[in-house]
């Protein structure tokens, strides 16, 4: 017995020694990055797939030889749909794990919670989701759409279609409130009418009064910034009241539409900078690769693609800067063109947001969007809307 234990202990020491040796040797050839999304809680529905896309990009880069000869080691953390946990995990990733950059975040609340962490620790966050603008930090690369790249193109489309009267409905938090503030200013500026504006608490299920007000004010189109499950209640109750008004949604992608039941949302519109149905070789390759990994029916959405391209732009920027230093990387990222991304040719502007095309899609019975309109070329990102925040601008990298 005694001998055996001794032998085991020797073996263990030897094993630990070899592991340490190999991990030390390994460490010289690796670089750590963080992926921070909600893997549990109410946002998990949307964020798990963004995590999948980000990790997939990292795996692809590793398979092709890594970045500057180093393999990327991914540290995945769960933000648990809680802004405080996002801040805590961001601190952990940068301080304890020593990651060189972090990909992640979804809700504006999570971004606002992480912002001071990245500023204090002088690190860099790649944020993949459309948002309300009105923010400008050198420590965040805002790849999701600014309001003028998603919301305002949708308004432009609606105006071109001749819609005169707009009903704004949203969940009661910062994104819908700011988005609607911008919409209202522009609708009034264009001499059109805001028929009504209503907010429902996140997770709200009763839309009877809202629908009564919609019917009373007779708008020509509804602009919908509801988030999460409230959308299901809203569309079910709209159908129940035989309401046939067109609805333009800003937070319903392929995944959400397919989860809600496509018969419910078929024919409604959405504005994004990417649709799974986008017809390009690069996109088809990306969708095929994702579905090969996560199942044939797996939906691909705009925030997922933004998470995916963020990783590639980071890699290109590191290689251009020949450094992982965040100041050098973010400056190198600006102006860098990624020609064959799934969403087409993209590049970051001076204000660390992406130039991107606005698309309008209409839902078909399969839960895919038919692209019916696109902006004339790429739209330069504008964090501060000139009508709502006059005189404010975002100058970072120059």
């Amino acid at each position: 017995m005694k001998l055996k234990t001794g032998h085991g202990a020797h073996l263990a020491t030897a094993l630990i020694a070899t592991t340490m040796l190999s991990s030390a040797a390994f460490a010289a050839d690796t670089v750590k990055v963080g992926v921070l999304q909600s893997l549990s809680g109410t946002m998990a529905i949307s964020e798990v797939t963004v995590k999948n896309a980000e990790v997939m990009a990292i795996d692809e880069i590793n398979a092709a030889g890594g970045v500057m000869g180093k393999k990327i080691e991914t540290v995945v953390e769960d933000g648990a749909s809680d802004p405080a946990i996002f801040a805590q995990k961001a601190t952990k990733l940068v301080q304890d794990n020593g990651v060189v950059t972090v990909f992640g975040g979804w809700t504006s609340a999570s971004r606002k919670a992480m912002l001071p962490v990245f500023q204090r620790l002088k690190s860099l966050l790649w944020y993949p989701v459309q948002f309300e603008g009105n923010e400008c930090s050198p420590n965040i690369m805002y790849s999701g759409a600014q309001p003028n790249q998603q919301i305002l193109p949708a308004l432009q489309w609606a105006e071109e279609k001749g819609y005169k009267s707009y009903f704004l409905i949203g969940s009661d938090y910062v994104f819908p409130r700011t988005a609607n503030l911008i919409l209202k200013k522009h609708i009034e500026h264009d001499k059109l009418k805001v028929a009504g504006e209503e907010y429902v608490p996140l997770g709200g299920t009763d839309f009877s009064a809202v629908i009564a007000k919609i019917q009373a004010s007779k708008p020509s189109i509804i602009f919908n910034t509801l988030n999460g499950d409230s959308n299901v209640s809203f569309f079910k109750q709209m159908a129940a009241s035989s309401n046939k008004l067109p609805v333009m949604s800003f937070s319903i992608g392929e995944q959400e539409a397919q989860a809600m039941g496509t018969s419910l949302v078929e024919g409604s519109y959405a504005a994004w900078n990417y649709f799974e149905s986008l017809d390009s070789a690069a996109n088809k390759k990306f969708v095929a690769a994702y579905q090969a990994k996560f199942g044939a029916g797996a939906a691909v959405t705009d925030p997922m693609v933004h998470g995916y391209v963020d990783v590639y732009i980071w890699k290109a920027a590191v290689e251009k800067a020949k450094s992982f230093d965040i100041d050098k990387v973010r400056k190198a990222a600006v102006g860098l063109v990624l020609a064959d991304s799934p969403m087409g040719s993209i590049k970051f502007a001076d204000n660390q947001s992406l130039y991107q095309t606005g698309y309008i899609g209409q839902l078909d019975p399969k839960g895919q969007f038919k692209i019916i309109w696109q902006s004339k070329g790429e739209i330069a990102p504008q964090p501060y809307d000139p009508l709502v925040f006059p005189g404010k601008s975002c100058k970072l990298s120059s």
Partner: protein
Amino acid sequence: MSETALVVGQVFNGFSLASLFVLAALGLALSFGLMRVINMAHGEMLMLGGYLAYLTLHIVPGPLGIIVAMPVAFVGAGLVGAIIEIGVIHRLSSRPLDTLLATWGISLIAQQAARDLFGAIGVDVTAPLWLNNTLAITAGPLAGLSFPTIRIFIILIAVLVLAALGAFLARSRIGLLVRAVNQDRAMAAATGINARQVDLMVFCLGTGIAGLAGVMLALLGPVTPTVGQSYIVPAFLVVILGGLGSLVGTTIASLLTGLFSALVQIFVDVSFAQVLMLLFVIAFLQFRPQGVIAVRSRALDG
């Protein structure tokens, strides 16, 4: 659409909301009234009803699926209620705070189970075509007003459930036993009533009604693992406002909150209407702490 039409429409919506509240809250009121059990897993019984409707609609597609789903959800949720009562609540019967914690645990387990079985994203329950209609008024002072068939249907179901439950408690032999245990558990037991069985029966009935309510809620809202959470707060509110454990009180409280919420929404948005409704309930309880109907029951004595 005229002002009167808008008000009449909102009164109708108030009744519709009230019918949802009362269906969601009846089970809570029943189990609290009789057993003083605060069932934190009640919302998950609503959720279970939604998922049972989803499964039933898969097996019985077509227009009558929803009619089949109602008894299925009632019996299914009732059976799950029986398991919870026998397995957990009965064993903690004289420890109200422990039941609160234990049922909260059950609610978390139920949510995770639904997530593992059906996925974190919701499932799709759509109303049959015969319910997706409206009764529209085209002439007269109320022109422009329309009433969704689904909402009329749910109001009817709520009235039927209330009537059936009332008749059951007032007229049936078991109802007599329930009332006896409710008034004085010790005395009822002394006369030979098996209070244990009455508890089990009432708890199952309560969760069964919650299952049925879940089918109704699925017609108007999402079916997700966490859907119970969005209805549990209004359900508790209605039970407290009604006078803990009183069925008539619960019904009146549902009507009060439903109508209040719908009518203030003529002037304010949904978010603010919720604030006003909570203020209304606080003010009401200041003047009438015992709720709408004061329950005289030994079960509620100290």
